[in-house]
């Protein structure tokens, strides 16, 4: 049968590609697994070395700076809580890029989806005040997911029906979302009591997201971890995930195999947006308590990088987000104890990600990790 043979030849590169980008460990023994740990860790160490030199050049003691970052990020339970609080929205935002990346779509509209999710959650949270605690929270989470889902879903729809490049469309949607946020908190949703920093009315205490036990870590972290695990499971272990990998690997083969490419793309985009929207809900319901321009604090852009660095893997997203949360959490202490500007963490973040991205291109370059020759690549 001509179709079958075409499917088979078409699907083969798809598997190669999927294996190449995400699950090197599939069937080639331990070498690649060790490689997948050694390379990023090596890159991290190299980045820390470069950053140490940078700090020394800037007049601080590089080694002391590291000790401070370590103390501020992972030193004790209190600072680790701070790290986790920052990691929660990052991991949700990272999923927003990681999921469509499996289809070969580079969506960078995380910031916009986060803002829209936050706005939707605030709308529900401030208006529906007499519901029981968990009903109100669920409604807010749902609203956030719908807000973000529609936002990135629109990007997917533009891609499918009009062929609009998703990178640009989602980038523009970020700016539009921030404009909508500013418009609403300065106009229709503005709390007259917020003078210096225009904000919406605060979410009543009853609708706020609580903390885990007696810690400072809020339930948003649970949302984030659960979302990462679910995404990992869906992408690696379900038919839907296989469809995604197939479409991302070879679009033509996927079409010939009869997959509803349009439908899967729309679902994936909406799902991705829902993750970022949930991040927005977590931010308003657990941290800010109201909507204002602090919502667009750059978690979205951080999430894009995390998605790439974690190689679109849900579990990787979890780890990299916590690492990044730690870096972000150490901003204050660098300013106080080392007289370094607060942009230092931005520099560190940039160096770390550039190094880890670079290490991505080194896979397969070192013979030690290969048990047999690696084929044509």
């Amino acid at each position: 049968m001509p179709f079958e043979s075409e499917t088979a030849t078409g699907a083969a590169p798809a598997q190669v590609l999927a294996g190449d980008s995400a699950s090197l460990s599939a069937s080639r023994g331990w070498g690649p697994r060790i490689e997948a740990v050694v390379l990023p860790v090596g890159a991290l160490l190299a980045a820390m070395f470069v950053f140490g030199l940078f700090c020394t050049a800037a007049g601080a003691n590089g080694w002391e700076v590291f000790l401070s970052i370590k103390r501020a990020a992972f030193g004790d339970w209190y600072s680790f809580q701070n790290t986790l609080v920052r990691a929660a929205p990052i991991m949700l935002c990272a999923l927003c890029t990681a999921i469509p990346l499996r289809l070969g779509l580079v969506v960078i509209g995380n910031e916009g989806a986060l803002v829209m999710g936050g706005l939707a959650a605030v709308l529900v949270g401030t208006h529906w005040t007499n519901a029981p605690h968990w009903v109100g929270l669920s409604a807010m989470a749902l609203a956030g997911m719908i807000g973000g889902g529609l936002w990135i879903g629109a990007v997917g729809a533009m891609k499918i029906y009009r062929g609009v490049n998703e990178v640009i469309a989602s980038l523009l949607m970020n700016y539009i979302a921030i404009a909508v946020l500013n418009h609403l908190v300065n106009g229709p949703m503005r709390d007259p009591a917020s003078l210096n920093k225009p904000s919406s009315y605060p979410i009543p205490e009853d609708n706020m997201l609580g903390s885990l036990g007696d810690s400072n870590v809020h339930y948003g972290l649970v949302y984030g971890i659960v979302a990462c695990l679910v995404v990992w499971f869906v992408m690696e272990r379900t038919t839907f995930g296989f469809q995604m990998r197939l479409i991302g690997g070879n679009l033509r083969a996927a079409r010939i195999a009869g997959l509803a490419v349009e439908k899967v793309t729309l679902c994936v985009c909406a799902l991705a947006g829902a993750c970022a929207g949930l991040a927005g809900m977590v931010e308003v319901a657990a941290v800010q308590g109201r909507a204002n321009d602090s919502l667009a604090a750059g978690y979205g852009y951080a999430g894009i990088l995390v998605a790439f660095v974690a190689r679109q893997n849900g579990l990787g997203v979890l780890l990299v987000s916590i690492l990044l949360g730690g870096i972000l959490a150490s901003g204050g202490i660098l300013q106080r104890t080392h007289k370094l500007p607060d942009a230092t963490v931005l520099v560190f973040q940039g160096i770390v990600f550039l190094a880890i991205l670079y290490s991505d291109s080194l896979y397969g370059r070192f013979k030690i990790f290969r048990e047999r020759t690696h084929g044509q690549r």
Partner: protein
Amino acid sequence: MANADSIGWMGVPLAVVAGAIRGSPPFLFVSLGECLTEKSGRINLGLEGTLLMGAMSAYAVSYKTGSPWLGLLVAGGAGLVLGLIHAWLAQRPRLNDVAVGIAMMIFGSGLAFFLGKPFIQPMAPALPVWELGNWSGSPQVRSALKLSPLLPGGIVLAFVMYWMFLSTRWGMFVRAVGDKPDAARAMGISVVKTRTLSIMSGGFLAGLGGAYLSLVYPGSWTELVSSGQGLMAVALVIFARWDPRHCLYASLLFGGAQAVGPALQAAGIQSYYYLFNAAPYILTLAIMILTCTPKRTLAGAPGALTTGD
């Protein structure tokens, strides 16, 4: 028509024209840089970082040496260096240029904020401007017609770039590398070298755009000096269909559109200020939705841009 008393409503079109004249050069330089980069087959989302680095280094050098022109040059040099890093990383196997661009954006802006911290307060000498509005009694007209030599420079550059792509050896190389890298390679053109030079030159131009921000208009260095022009450039180049001449028109349009919100606010219309600020983005998105088709890639798009060869 325009004296200080009757400025009221007339202020809106005037402000838009002023915005096009004064606000467009950063858009123009960054979009020309992005255009050159994308013509060679790679996208550089990190130009926002380059822009900030350019703005900071231009201001710092101008403050330290007293020579804004030296600052301009150093800003371009900073762009070259960041462009080199991007060019090197974006051409590594399996690295996504969008991801590298975002990392470069974070790195570049972080570096600019870090090194620029001491220069937020002091005043640096600005680049000279031509005061073309002295015939008018109205201060609005006069401030609108302060023309920086960089704008005509950029306009000339846009047409020169168009001519280069069309009919010079170098332009052909860049286009060949961007459209069909394999064919270019077969012709004996070095893809890596051509791309590296294109991306570095693109960074140089973005650095100049940054210098305009800190040395001409708004004319000081703060962490908010760029309002996303570097990221917008990516959209602008698509809007302009990878044609340097259209980059010029689009830059003027975006510069003007940026001034609509504040102008309406000055004329007493407050309520939709923030939505008007998003006008350029909504405009770009609307035009893309109207003109793209799912059947084929955009006319004029460099072939390797989408396939990642």
